[in-house]
């Protein structure tokens, strides 16, 4: 029982990270039909912004984190939209997908070239102690990750549903032409989405790097699993990304512990195939029909 509790908490913590990254996938797709295959690298890079600020700028960790967040918003939010998405998106989804794959390689190689090829320790912004719960040792680190992920998702849901800007963003996602006719500044709403995505990846980066260590290759698996999580949950629903992320995190841990550690990497793919075969809209996604 203690083992199951520990695995559940660890799985939910990992799943919380996947969910944050997967939400970014969904938001970008809904508002601008952008599938960002550099999303995993977007999670990897903010940690290096922080480390560079500490190493080169001599800043304290909290200040470096704030600076890292700001730089992430500018580089992976604003500049990503202006320099990569805007010029390419008018040529269709496929060229944009290829561009983001190229961007992923560029980001990885740049970090490797200009910072380090080996893993770097990344400080934790929270306690690394443990709690004894019913015979199980539960890591405070994992509880913090789960709590931060839950708060971030709840805040995002409130923002989207409970504020005027959020509702405008939803309108933009549902029908940009009609939204424009109604006077909604569609371009600005799309920009907000990119900034929110940048904020989410920065958060995921700060949460995961103390555990996984900061390394240029960290985004490879993370990006793929988060993408699959978004599809498994439902690519047209933010709540789908949350369900998909948490599900993959928990299933991965239980499979590795009780079934097979060797094939754990294939589990997300099996889930993906099962969902595509039996519930193509995703577990909590909405079925969409298209008139031909």
């Amino acid at each position: 029982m203690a083992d199951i509790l520990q695995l559940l908490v660890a799985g939910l913590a990992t799943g919380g990270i996947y969910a944050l990254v997967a939400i970014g996938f969904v938001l970008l797709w809904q508002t601008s039909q952008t599938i960002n295959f550099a999303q995993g690298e977007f999670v990897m890079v903010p940690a290096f912004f922080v480390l560079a600020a500490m190493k080169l700028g001599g800043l304290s960790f909290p200040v470096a984190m704030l600076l890292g967040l700001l730089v992430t918003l500018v580089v992976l939010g604003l500049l990503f939209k202006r320099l990569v998405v805007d010029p390419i998106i008018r040529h269709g989804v496929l060229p944009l997908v290829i561009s983001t794959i190229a961007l992923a390689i560029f980001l990885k190689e740049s970090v490797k070239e200009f910072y380090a090829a080996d893993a770097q320790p990344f400080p934790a912004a929270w306690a690394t102690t443990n709690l004894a719960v019913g015979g199980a040792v539960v890591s405070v680190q994992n509880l913090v990750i789960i709590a931060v992920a839950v708060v971030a998702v709840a805040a995002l849901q409130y923002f989207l549903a409970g504020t005027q800007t959020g509702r405008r963003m939803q309108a933009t996602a549902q029908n940009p032409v009609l939204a424009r006719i109604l006077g909604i500044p569609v371009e600005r709403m799309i920009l907000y989405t990119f900034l929110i995505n940048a904020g989410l990846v920065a958060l995921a980066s700060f949460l995961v790097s103390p555990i996984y260590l900061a390394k240029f290759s960290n985004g490879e698996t993370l990006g793929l699993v988060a993408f699959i999580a978004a599809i498994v949950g439902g690519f047209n629903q933010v709540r789908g990304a949350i369900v998909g992320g948490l599900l993959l995190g928990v299933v991965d841990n239980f499979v590795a512990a009780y079934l097979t550690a060797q094939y754990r990497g294939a589990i997300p793919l099996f889930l993906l195939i099962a969902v595509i075969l039996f519930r193509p809209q995703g577990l909590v996604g909405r079925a969409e029909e298209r008139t031909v």
Partner: protein
Amino acid sequence: MKTWIKSALAAALAIGAATTAAQQTVNLPIVIELSGAGAVSGTNFRDGAMLAIDEINARGGILGRKINAPQTDTQSNPGVSRAQVQKALDGNPYAILGPIFSGSVKANMVLAQQAEVPQFTGAEAADITQAGNAYIFRTSFGQQASMPKIANYIRDGLKAKTVAVLWVNNDFGKGGRDTFVKEVTARGIKVVADISTESGQVDFAADVVKVKGANADAIFAYTNEEESARFLREARKQGVSTPLIGETTLLNQKVIELAGDAANGVRGHVGLSAEAPIPAVQEFRAKFTKRFGYVPDHNGIKGYTAVYAVKHATERIGKFDRKLLAQTMHGLTITPQQEPGILMETTWDDKGDIDRISFLAEVVDGKQKIVQTLPKLGK
């Protein structure tokens, strides 16, 4: 016409000068892991080798020739390493330094063997020196030498009756796991958990749960540096209190740096250590740290001593002869009195395996502390 003659003369002189310059250098290419899972090990090895090369060149080189050491990255990939060794062989090397990953060495050592070029590797998989290759030389213990020492420590030092083994599923980890299990079983210690992990793995939560569930007297972890650090961090997160035992890698400087407090209390055997209580090693550590800005691990010592081994053996031969270098290395013992750069008395046997003193160590307050020096196996 006069201009034409002048140009021809200048070209001839330039070619002559270039030829002389080429004759004044000796090629020691470094084919090593500078990215990928082996980047920590490879960077240490490369930096250690470069430190030795620059020292030797500053003193006039080997037999009057400066060392030229082009570096290539295997990306920790056996296929890439094979191509890089072939590229190095095309450059007419005197010997090749590296790589470290056992899987890479197994893939490329046959190329150096066929070209009759001595290869000084940092790899530790037991079977590398069992294949009858007369041109492969270790720079550290093979697993067949180090695992008996750690098995003795688990039996005599910890008095453990059961052990859980966590290993990385690559050539290094599989070879180490097989040798370790054989050695502990021979000593009456029962292996109660046998857990394989993947190279580059980042999430160790499930593995630690399994290790904990085994309720062993000791946990033996045998993975590469970054994975070792992630495992230690997860073990700390889950409150593992069972003694964590390792062989060299688990106690190395980079693992301690990456794992932070989670590395405290780790114990085990280290074949090479920059913390060894030997003045020559301490001097090397200080020089390395001053130049590269970080404390070297055992791979730094491997790279450093490999270059000095080539220098000493070549000076003993008195000429640059690759075949003779390989023949001379077999059965050779180099002492620090003969060659200070070798740091510790070292012997290579007829297979290219190494023998020298080694250490039992523990991580205390974020630092590796040597608690016992073990004699050479041959003594």
